[in-house]
Structure formats: C-alpha cells, structure tokens
C-alpha cells in the first residue's frame, strides 16, 4: 500500500482529501503543521511515497519542507497543493508537481499516479 504524508493546516482539507485518498486504497498520514510534518519525516521519512503539502502552514512554508523530504525521504515525490495560484511560491522552488487547490480530485489522483509511476521507474523531477 502506498503511503501519503498529507500536510495541510486546514482540518477540513485534511479530513476530506484524506478520505478521498483512503478510498483509493492509499494510506494517509496527516500532519497539521510544518512542525508535525518535520517530526513525521524524521520518524518515518523513508516510508512515504508521496508528500502532499500546502504552501502556507502557519508555522512554515511547504516549499521549505522540500529539502527535508529530499534528505529524509529521498524516494518520495512532493506535490504542492497550492491555494495561492503560485503567486506566493518562490519561482526557484522545485516541487515534483504543483496542483491548484480546488482542482478536480480525478486530476489530482491522475497526477499522483503519474508521480508514483515515475518514482518506480527511477525518474526525477521533470
């Protein structure tokens, strides 16, 4: 079973997106803050296949989580679920994929499977 670290400071978003992902047979580990995500990555980074992260987390930026993921979960792909239409995301930040918040879940799922396939074939960021 693929494991997703879902990092979002919105309780509603974690609950609903997490439920949709679980219905797809994925194991979802929620993190409500940058600090929680950092703890999860330190404890079990290697066990994650995908990290889905919001940009604004109250105690930090999702983009600042990327170096930690690369170090502690080198096999995981990082998807930014952005509520900011890229306007607050630094242009030099490298996510494996970026999806605007509110995008149809089918699109999110398709992109996630594409990342997982790329991960299995050993492909890096586009």
């Amino acid at each position: 079973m693929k494991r997703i670290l879902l990092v979002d400071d919105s309780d509603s978003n974690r609950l609903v997106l997490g439920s949709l992902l679980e219905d797809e047979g994925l194991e979802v580990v929620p993190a409500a803050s940058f600090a929680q995500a950092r703890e999860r990555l330190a404890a079990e980074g290697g066990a994650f296949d995908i990290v889905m992260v919001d940009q604004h987390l109250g105690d930090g930026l999702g983009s600042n989580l990327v170096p930690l993921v690369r170090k502690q979960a080198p096999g995981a792909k990082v998807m930014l679920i952005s509520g900011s239409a890229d306007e607050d995301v630094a242009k030099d930040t490298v996510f494996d994929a970026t999806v605007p918040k509110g995008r149809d879940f089918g699109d999110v799922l398709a992109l996630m499977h594409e990342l997982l396939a790329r991960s299995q074939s050993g492909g890096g960021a586009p």
Partner: protein
Amino acid sequence: MDGRDPLDGVERVAFAEEVSSAMRHAVRNKLAAARNAATYIQRRLSKTEAWQSDARIPTFHGLIESELDAAGGLLDPKDTLAHVFTRHAERVSASRCIREAVAHARVGTDAAPSVRVEAPDDAEVMVDPRELTLAVRCLVENAVEATQGKGPVSVRGSRDGDRFVIEVTDDGPGIEESRREEAMRAFFTTKPGHAGVGLPIARRIARRYDGAFALGTSPSGGLVARIDLPTSPLPAVQP
C-alpha cells in the same frame, strides 16, 4: 516639494494586493474542502437508490460543483487592479531606487534617525522603479521602527556576480529564525497600530521581478532584510 508622497499610489495598490491575496488564499482553501467533500458524496452515493430515483440529488450535486467552480473563477487575480495601476518594467539604476526610497522614507522628523546608504556598485535591473523604490522604503521604515525610530540603519546595494543585492540592516531586536516566515506573511505584526504589510510587499515585489527576498541576522543581533535581483544585461551591440 509639495509634500505629496510620490509612492502613495503604488503603495495603495501594493496594500490592496496583500489584502486580496490573503482573502483569495483563505477562500480557495474553503472552496477546495467543499469541492472535495462534494466529490466524496458523489462517489459514495452515485450508485445508491436515492441517487437514481431522485433526479434532484445528482442535479443539485452538479449545481454545487458548478457554483464552487464559478466562485473559484472570481478569485482570479489577473487584471483585478489593472484599472488602478499599470506596471512598466524598464531598465533602471538600482542605486537610484535605493536613494529615492531613503529620501521618501517616512521615518519621523523630530529626531531624524541615522540611515546610512552605501552603494559602492550600481547596476541596471529590469523593474518598475516605483515598485522597487517602494519595496526598499518598506524595509527602511521597518528597520527604523525596529530601532524605536532612532537608527542606525544601513542600506547597502552591491553587485554579486550577475545579481544586485540590497541589504537593509538594523540594530533592533531582530526576528528569530523560527518566526521569520510568519513575519513575512501579510498582517503579521508585533507593533500596535501597524498593518504588518511591509515585509510581504517587499517579498512580493522582489519575486515579481525574478528576485528573491530573505531575512537574516545582523552581527549585532538585529534584522537584515535582503532583496536579490537579477541584473539586466546590456543590449547586444549591433554590428
């Protein structure tokens, strides 16, 4: 001098951008949760008898989704402020923007703070000069406030390879690393009566012109705010 602030217009627009951006972000979050919840309900109920027998259920589900999409469309920032302000990016002297920013900084008149400008290098950068000037002024005013209006504040512009770096340094209390991201978000402030938009405005403007913005600590423990912009190469000489 007629006492009019030459940056008043661009500052109003920058403030409006911070307000609208914060609202867009909050509303998008809510819409996303509602849309995903609607998707979950559809997936769970679409094969049930209720969904099949009452045509209003799938119709209303479709209505919820289409209304959420329409609401999301209203959040598109494009052209929102176009009728108020038009940007004109051009090749300008970075040092000139620094000096203009300091000249127009609103830092009190009773006991003028010490603001030292050092710009040993100059370079041309591709920006709207009003916006870069405003960004630097925000940082200068922020730095002076951090020193209780006294200074000293240092504003330094220098070349670093193909980048031009502007650093505004104060001797205030600084911002600890764990709180810097918070400090760069709109409406975060520890100062009563302040809106807390100076740092976000500077960051937004730096990023708009392919630059970067960062906060650090000065040798005295104060704050260093740094804007880093690509320099604009000279036009190719025609043969």
